[in-house]
């Protein structure tokens, strides 16, 4: 059974190789090859899942050692895989949602002449993401980490003929490099400290702590901070969040799969997987919760101000991942709920993005929500599935998001002390804002009067429902949005499933769970009402009003790019300029001076070679005399 693990990765990898190397003759069938191989991977995942369920909870870890990658004395790296409850969860999410989005892309990318290549990249992404979550050591994880970064870059810039897409891809790549640097430094510290980067000996289990338990807290804090930096880059957390909004330049299925459901959650996976390190480094852990709390508010505020439907959803993604990071930072209190929210979010956010894609598909790729309105009549399936996703994300009681988000808010309070109150408060506030901005999206898009107008060529959009290859995945994801949370929470199924890996702790909640649930529902209702009053009762201007200072800042992503520009770009330019100055004057001065003096010496010595045999003979005679004299002298001394 272990041998299936490698096949899980091999299927989409094969797809990527075939599609990218196959050339034009695969154009007609390429998209189906990609979709089928993604589905094959999902089937393998399902088989393994059934197999794991058949074992008892403590023995659900499968490992497969494929080959020795770098067998050097004192430096052993293996290509080995580990399938446990945590990676299994991710495998099902990645291959399941991934297969649906492959299917959706068949319709969405129908008119794109580079569709085969698109599917090749999607398969490449699946393979890299599976490698990331299945790796049995940090070095192999890093390979997958860079692989998803590459796939993300290629897919954001897929429409490279648009300068904005090319720039966005470059931006995502560059910002991610900062995070990747953190991961590579963390791995280097691990290697120098422990001499290994394999999960087993490093992290240990609950019963037997691994090498991590024998190390000073300072080292672990350093590793933790570097891992957090990595997570911030990949999961678009403050301060490395700036790339995610621009990444929406990619095709919508990409936004749904990579920049909502899976890749951006890799940071959460990294933190939860490295739980043993963070548990022993409270300072790093505290910083994780702070990053999560700040980001969940940051993303939510940005989401309120965007008129571009995908960018509003991107802000929301950032905010929801903020929740997960917050939960992951709470330690054993929150690990399980971080992952649970990650899975439910994978369903409803992918569904929302696919819905947004469907709307754009019917509206001539218009993304400005102020030019939508009243679409519920024209695309009923999209309306219903999007609506269910909407209810799930705002935490409508009984739907997926309600269960998972509520647990995180509870866990935040259960952190205890002042921190607990602050974090819980932030999480609650975030829930209110979530309800507000999602209601705004919903109302602007599907309710009210139609506001679309003919474009500059005089073409008026004719909104219509999308083909079934697009609606079927939306419907299936809507099922997930509705039922996943309940399925996981009833009887604490998900908790029992994941607990052997992550551990669990109830913390000490200052207020009862019922109070938290009631407050969550209450703030949700407040958020929905506020948004409805603002956008549902009054006509919506097609051109955005000037807005308050905060609105304007939020439209500019809370000035993140301006900040980066002023501090990093200008600062960097000044730094390089001064380094260039030093290089030119000091370094070049020394180097050129040396070169000039050697050259001068060479010119002078060269004159000794005057072409006369007599001079040469004198030189030889002098040399011999010196040689003999020196030998004699050495003896005398």
């Amino acid at each position, binding site marked *: 059974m272990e041998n299936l693990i490698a096949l899980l990765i091999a299927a989409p990898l094969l797809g990527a190789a075939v599609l990218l190397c196959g050339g034009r003759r695969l154009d007609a069938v390429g998209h189906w090859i990609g979709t089928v191989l993604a589905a094959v991977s999902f089937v393998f995942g399902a088989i393994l899942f059934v197999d794991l369920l058949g074992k008892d909870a403590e023995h659900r870890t499968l490992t497969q050692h494929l080959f020795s990658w770098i067998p050097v004395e004192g430096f052993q790296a293996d290509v080995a895989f580990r399938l446990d409850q945590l990676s299994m969860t991710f495998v099902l999410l990645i291959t399941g949602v991934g297969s649906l989005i492959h299917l959706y892309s068949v319709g969405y990318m129908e008119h794109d002449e580079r569709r085969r290549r698109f599917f090749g990249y999607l398969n490449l992404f699946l393979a890299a993401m599976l490698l990331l979550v299945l790796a049995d050591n940090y070095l192999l994880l890093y390979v997958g980490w860079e692989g998803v970064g590459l796939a993300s870059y290629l897919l954001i810039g897929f429409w490279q003929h648009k300068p904005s897409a090319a720039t966005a891809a470059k931006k995502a790549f560059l910002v991610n490099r900062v995070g990747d640097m953190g991961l590579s430094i963390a791995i280097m510290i691990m290697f120098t400290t422990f001499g290994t980067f394999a999960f087993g000996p490093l992290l240990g289990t609950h019963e037997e702590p691994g090498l991590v338990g024998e190390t000073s807290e300072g080292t672990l804090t350093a590793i933790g901070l570097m891992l957090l930096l990595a997570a911030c880059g990949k999961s678009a957390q403050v301060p490395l969040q700036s790339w995610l909004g621009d990444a929406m330049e990619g095709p919508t299925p990409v936004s749904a799969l990579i920049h909502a459901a899976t890749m951006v959650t890799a940071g959460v996976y990294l933190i939860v997987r490295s739980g043993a390190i963070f548990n022993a480094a409270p300072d790093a852990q505290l910083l994780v919760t702070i990053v999560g709390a700040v980001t969940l508010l940051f993303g939510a505020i940005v989401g309120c101000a965007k008129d571009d439907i995908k960018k509003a959803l991107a802000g929301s993604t950032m905010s929801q991942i903020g929740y997960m990071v917050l939960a992951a930072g709470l330690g054993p209190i929150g690990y399980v709920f971080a992952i649970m929210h990650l899975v439910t979010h994978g369903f409803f956010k992918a569904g929302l993005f696919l819905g947004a894609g469907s709307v754009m598909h019917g509206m001539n790729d218009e993304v400005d929500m102020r030019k939508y309105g009243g679409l519920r009549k024209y695309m009923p399936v999209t309306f219903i599935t999007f609506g269910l996703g909407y209810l799930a994300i705002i935490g409508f009681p009984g739907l997926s998001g309600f269960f998972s988000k509520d647990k995180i808010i509870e866990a935040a309070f259960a952190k205890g002390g002042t921190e607990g109150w602050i974090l819980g408060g932030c999480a609650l506030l975030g829930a209110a804002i979530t309800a507000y901005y999602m209601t705004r999206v919903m109302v602007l898009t599907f309710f009210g009067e139609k506001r679309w107008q003919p474009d500059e060529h005089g073409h008026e959009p004719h909104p219509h429902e999308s083909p079934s290859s697009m609606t079927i995945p939306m419907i299936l994801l809507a099922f997930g949005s509705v039922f996943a949370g309940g399925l996981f929470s009833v009887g604490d199924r998900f908790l029992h499933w994941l607990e052997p890996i992550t551990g669990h702790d109830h913390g000490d909640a200052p207020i009862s769970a019922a109070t938290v649930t009631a407050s969550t529902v209450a703030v949700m209702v407040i958020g929905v009402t506020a948004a409805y009053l603002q956008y549902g009762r009054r006509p919506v201007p097609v051109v955005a009003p000037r807005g308050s200072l905060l609105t304007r800042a939020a439209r500019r992503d809370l000035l993140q790019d301006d900040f980066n520009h002023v501090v990093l770009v200008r600062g960097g330019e000044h730094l390089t300029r001064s380094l260039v100055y030093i290089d030119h004057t000091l370094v070049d001065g020394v180097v050129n001076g040396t*070169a000039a003096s050697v050259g001068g010496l060479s010119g002078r010595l060269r004159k000794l*070679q005057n072409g006369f045999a007599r001079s040469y003979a004198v030189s030889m005679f002098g*040399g011999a005399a010196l*040689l003999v004299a020196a030998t004699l002298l050495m*003896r005398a001394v």
Partner: protein
Amino acid sequence: MSASAVHSLWTTAADPISKIDAPKIEYGQLSPTLIVVGAAVVGVLIEAIVPRKSRYYAQVFVSAVALTAAFAAVVALAADGYGTTKAGIAAMGAIAVDGPALFLQGTILLAGLVGLFTFAERRLDPAAHGNRVDSFAAQAASVPGSESEKAAVKAGFTTTEVFPLLLFAVAGMLVFPAANDLLTLFIALEVFSLPLYLMCALARRKRLMSQEAAVKYFLLGAFASAFTLFGIALLYGYAGSVSYATIAQVVDGTLTTVDPALANTMGNDALLLIGMGMLVMGLLFKVGAVPFHMWTPDVYQGAPTPVTGFMAAATKVAAFGALLRVLYVVLPGLRWDWRPVMWAVAIITMLGGAIVAITQTDIKRLLAYSSIAHAGFILAGVIATTPDGVSSVLFYLAAYSFVTIGAFAVVTLVRDAGGEATHLSKWAGLGRRSPLVAAVFAVFLLAFAGIPLTSGFAGKFAVFKAAAEGGAAPLVVVGVISSAIAAFFYIRVIVLMFFSEPRPEGPTVAVPSPLTMTAIGVGVAVTLVLGVAPQYFLDLASDAGVFVR
């Protein structure tokens, strides 16, 4: 004288005289040298017997077969264990058959074979009067520019004597590192030097320059030989013997019997030290170490380029082999006397070669100075006085000789109306016009510079490592600095070839026959193989690194 006295003379003469024991010669173990010498004699006979038209083919055939057979004999001897367990002294103590000797003989034979290919190249110069011509003068004895020279060219004469000369030179070089007494050493020195002097004078183009180079080489070579011979005489006076082993024993003090005829001189340290200095100086002349290097640039530039390539490679191998044997077998007891002096020589050789090379404008002179710098690097390995030192020098010599022959073979290809275009300015933009030739030359230059993945790096690394472990760390520092200086002029040529605009009236690259292509191809292949996977050959050199005493 009375009649009876005369008679008694007769009768005494009639007495049976004591028998002279026939010297015991191990023909099998000497076979590599004997094959080459025999072939050289056959080559002389070919000149006398075979019609002029067929001589070229006969000579090339005989030389190639002889060198190949001699190499096979070396391999067979090595495979038989003569490099390790069966190593011993042959020919009544005159020749050592051991690991270093066989390794160096193998290298010299391969270098000779590759050199032979460049000698035999006849497609580079345009045919004169319908006759294909090689790099050598039509008739060496004719005065340059004279009517007789023109007549010789018109008649299609070629100097096929170069092939037996090459074989004689190779034969001398085979004996030189294997010589086990000082007289054999000296005879070997002369046997390979004289043909080289001659060959230097044989260039087809720029004959005056070629002859000037040959005369300088001959004068200075004779001067150096005189030193060597005088050193040998002094050492004989000190030890009462020319045998390496005996001298070493006297130096160590393990042999104290005094020859009554030499009672005044034996054991006199002044004789030993002066003799050693003069002998070593003669060898340093051959390897081209500063300050005995001054012939190198002039001779390298003037000699026909195939000869330069062969000489630069094989002479260096043979001379370093002899130097190693003298220092390790004869004079190990004097290590503390010669090491400081050799340190100084190594340092000024490395720095001198590298620094003066910077301002050279002729590619052949540039390579000459480069060879001087390399002699310095090899000296650093010699000074290590450890088994690693020996094996690293052996490896370096093997690696260096193929790069050198290959590089000079490339030089023969770049030509303009006046023959080879050796001025550096003419090489500008060569990479645009002939990317393959320029790329191959770049590989050789990178190997000279010691860039990783070329044999130059592996060799330099081995030598410096041995020197550092042998307690000569400052030498390594100087070596690395010189390498940095040297890298400048190697890279400058690469930049010139690839990043400069080609000159409108620039040279053309001749298309060679398979012979030169083979020489260059072997050079590139060896450079890359020794660079990428040097371990097998390092092990080979390491196994061969023990001198028999």
